[in-house]
């Protein structure tokens, strides 16, 4: 599962936070990135699977990868 092209520049660690905060924080963080930069969102809120990818796309960002590994989910989102 090596994807060397997907190196995130920033990480948002939302571990422990419930809805809606992970999705809200993700949308608030994205404008801080330069175009083309990648944000890594790490969360253990399972509900985020239905919120973060859709919200990111709806707000004009590109969801590059979603990795589910037990309770932890990682999203890679490009501005």
């Amino acid at each position, binding site marked *: 599962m090596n994807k060397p092209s997907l190196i995130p520049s920033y990480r948002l660690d939302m*571990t422990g936070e419930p809805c809606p905060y992970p999705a809200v924080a993700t949308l608030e963080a994205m404008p801080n990135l330069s175009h083309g930069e990648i944000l890594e969102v790490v969360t253990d809120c399972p509900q985020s699977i239905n919120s973060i990818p859709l919200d990111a796309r709806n707000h004009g960002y590109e969801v590059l990868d979603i990795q589910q590994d037990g309770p932890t989910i990682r999203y890679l989102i490009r501005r």
Partner: protein
Amino acid sequence: MTWQDFKTHYLVRFWAPLPAVLAAGVLSAYYFGITGTFWAVTGEFTRWGGHLLQLAGYHPETWGYFQLIHLEGTPLTRIDGVMIIGMFAGCLSAALWANNVKLRLPRHRIRIVQALAGGIIAGFGARLAMGCNLAAFFTGIPQFSLHAWFFALATAAGSYFGARFTLLPMFRLPVKLQKIDQAMPLQQDANQARRRFRLGMVIFLAFMAWAVSQSFSAPKLGLAALFGLAFGLLIERAQICFTSAFRDLWITGRSQMAKAIILGMAVSAIGIYSYIQLGAAPKIMWAGPNAVLGGLMFGFGIVLAGGCETGWMYRAVEGQVHFWWVGIGNIIGATLLAVCWDDIAPVVATNFDKVNLLAVFGPQGGLLLTYLMLAMSFGAILLWERRFFASKASARTAPAQNPA
């Protein structure tokens, strides 16, 4: 397809919400046909509160509210009771299959405060309106009870204020954007995942065996337990969240869950209708101020808490401690409502009519009206979505016009 593929695709990965909500809609119609009641959870939570009061030496069975919702028997002898145990078993099995059980501790005390307060407000409001997102919304509207429409609209309004309140700075913990040069390694303990999966299977199969054996001596109870198991699997695996359906319309403009729920009600309503035409009695509640007040409180409470009566169930078994507090709050709130019901009921509820749309407009008229209102709700969501993103887009381009 190997067993490993099957496991990964169907048991471990999350399910898409739309098919899951449609399945819940269809199942809830069959559930009504078989058990004679609708898929509901808060009434039973209120009875748990009643039993706790009995243990403490009180006599809640003499109170009006418990005579209304009945406190006879135990959770194991009531349809709602075994169904809820089934839901917990389903949620827990599904969470274990995906190794998704983890003790998630709140990051800050404020989360516990909002979970408990939101849970109490939502529990009180739900029982005031005679149902939560299920009995007064997802399974209430397909019963053709007008009170469910009052409740749904009031919940939407309440959730708007809840969303504004919940994003106030006092609830926002500081999050920092870390500069990094490589992704965080994700390492799942493969042995733990295997053990958890097996444990989930044991719970799933044991509960199923118990429910099937029950269904021979007490068919309704056994089948209700099996339906509960299926509902539990659906809500956990697809992370069905009624709270987000309302809340995220306002916060991020996301409408997927709201649309799925409207379609779920649409597939359910025709099924319920057919059972009613065959002679089943629909569950109709008072269309009074209680439905509106209860909906406003409920909508506010579920957003503050982060989940409703259905939502906390699967999150609690996933180990999200936050939602243990929501569940406790729900039971406290529902019990408080039962305490003061006899004083407020004549003013806000029992002197108002129980309006059955199929009786008022005739069976075909009521059915047509229900689908018309569902279609209008769907249309309203599409319009809201368009407006939301149009105003976002103009907010994004506005600073560009002003280079200062």
